[in-house]
């Protein structure tokens, strides 16, 4: 049995949680992540507003506030970090699944863990990466629950193991040991 608190799954991807803003940052990219019309947007906007209120004393232009779907957020933040100076922080709010995906891109663009703050509004949905066929599947299955792979249709265990590089959960075949087997070949 995996102890979740010492697993690779961030606590905020297990249950919603809002990180503490690092007031020392000088400039900020704040992104509310979500597709237009997503039912999680209002909660994410509320977190974003609380953050902007904390940063209200900053000079104009220090906080760039946007609302974007995950893919667009990745593109925009990658461009931000190309131009940014040390002292910049990234503030992300949205579902755990979106935050994991966008955080992965931000880390790949050179950010360190202490430059990214995450505010999660919902942690029921995850992206599972099939270790056998490399397809990804979006699911609401619980950790250690099962889902069906969108690529190879295998039943996958949602392993409580998360990659910071991709933001995916590892999925592996649930019933490999119940499959038909063949007798070993006789010795040559």
């Amino acid at each position, binding site marked *: *049995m*995996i*102890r979740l608190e*010492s*697993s*690779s*799954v961030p606590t905020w991807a297990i249950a919603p949680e809002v990180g503490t803003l690092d007031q020392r940052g000088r400039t900020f990219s704040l992104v509310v992540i979500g597709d237009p019309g997503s039912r999680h947007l209002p909660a994410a906007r509320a977190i974003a507003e609380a953050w902007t209120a904390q940063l209200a004393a900053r000079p104009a232009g220090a906080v760039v506030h946007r609302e974007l779907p995950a893919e667009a957020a990745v593109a925009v933040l990658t461009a931000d970090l190309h131009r940014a100076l040390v002292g910049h922080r990234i503030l992300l709010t949205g579902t755990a699944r979106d935050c994991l995906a966008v955080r992965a891109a931000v880390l790949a663009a050179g950010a*360190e*863990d*202490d430059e990214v703050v995450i505010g999660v509004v919902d942690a029921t949905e995850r992206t599972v*990466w099939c*270790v*056998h066929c*490399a397809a990804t599947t979006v699911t609401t299955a619980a950790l250690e629950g099962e889902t069906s792979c969108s690529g190879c249709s*295998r039943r996958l265990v949602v*392993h*409580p*193991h*998360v*990659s*910071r*590089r*991709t933001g*995916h959960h*590892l999925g*592996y*075949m649930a019933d*490999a*040991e*119940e*499959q*038909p*087997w*063949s*007798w*070993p*070949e*006789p*010795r*040559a």
Partner: protein
Amino acid sequence: MTALSLPTSTAADLLEGFPFPFSHDSYRYSTNVEPARSPVATPVGQWGASVVTVDSEYHRELAERAVLLERDPSRYGVLPHMEVACWDAMLVLLRELASARPDAFHLDVVDAEGPTYRWRNDLLGIEQTFVVGRRETLPAEPLAWACQQVQEDVVLLDQRSGELYGDAGVVTFAADWSFGFDLGMTFLEIHGPVPRVHAEGVIPRAREFILRLQPGQVYRRTNWTLTVGRRLDVATETYPEWGPDRAMVLHVDDDAFGHLVHLRVEVQHLLRLPESGAVMFLIRTHLLPLADIARVPAWRERTAAVLTELPQDMADYKGIAAYRSRAAAWLRDCTSTTTPAPASPSALAPEESR
């Protein structure tokens, strides 16, 4: 799905050099690191004199690695900032090969500028002159090229902000984990799935230890499990291929069981690379069928005791819960015709091992 074939008899050097992992009749996880490069005597031989080990499986295992990499390129991965560490790792691996087997491998500095080296690998017929840092002087990327010449799997850990990240490697013989998925994770994240070790402090202590490892120091540890068949590739990626064998092995007769079930031992080395400051983690996998374990009475008894006593959560994690009792019983009862006569060192004719 490819069916396993029953292995033929084990080459003598694989038995003589087998790193039998158990020092007690029970096994628990611990931060079992010790200084490397000191030989460990066993009832039939020894292991551990060198950091890399070349044995009679050299050609076969390297050919298998090439096939696996061809089929699944994600077994090799290098994050962009690991370039220097890869050069570092390559040089250390070549140097260790040359020191382990001076008859077969030669590394010479031909020009201190660069510096420029000449490398000769007589086992594979390789001769190469290269300049450190100059990719065009090698036929492949440095880590990939080195791993075409060592039987070890390699993970390189970057150290930054007091944390270790598994940011590069070549791992073709993983024991039920996915290198491609774990690439980029911290040391603690990598070990997330292992039971007990966090609460018992084994992994946090290991982390502290590795963070402080200095260039020039080399440590080693062993880890073990059971594998059905002489199968090096039991990565999670190929679980659908090898998973069913765990059920199959319950149905074969005793003779086949003893030849199919292998004690799988990983000798793992840890060392700090001097130029990049990265940590190199080497995993060398040894497989010995129970039939051969049984040829050494001390090994037979101890393995049976460990398998019997192993707590359920550890057996579950290792994926051996279904057949460890049969393995223990097989070892205890195998005094009949199924077992070759107990071996003495002189009885083991040195085949073309070294």
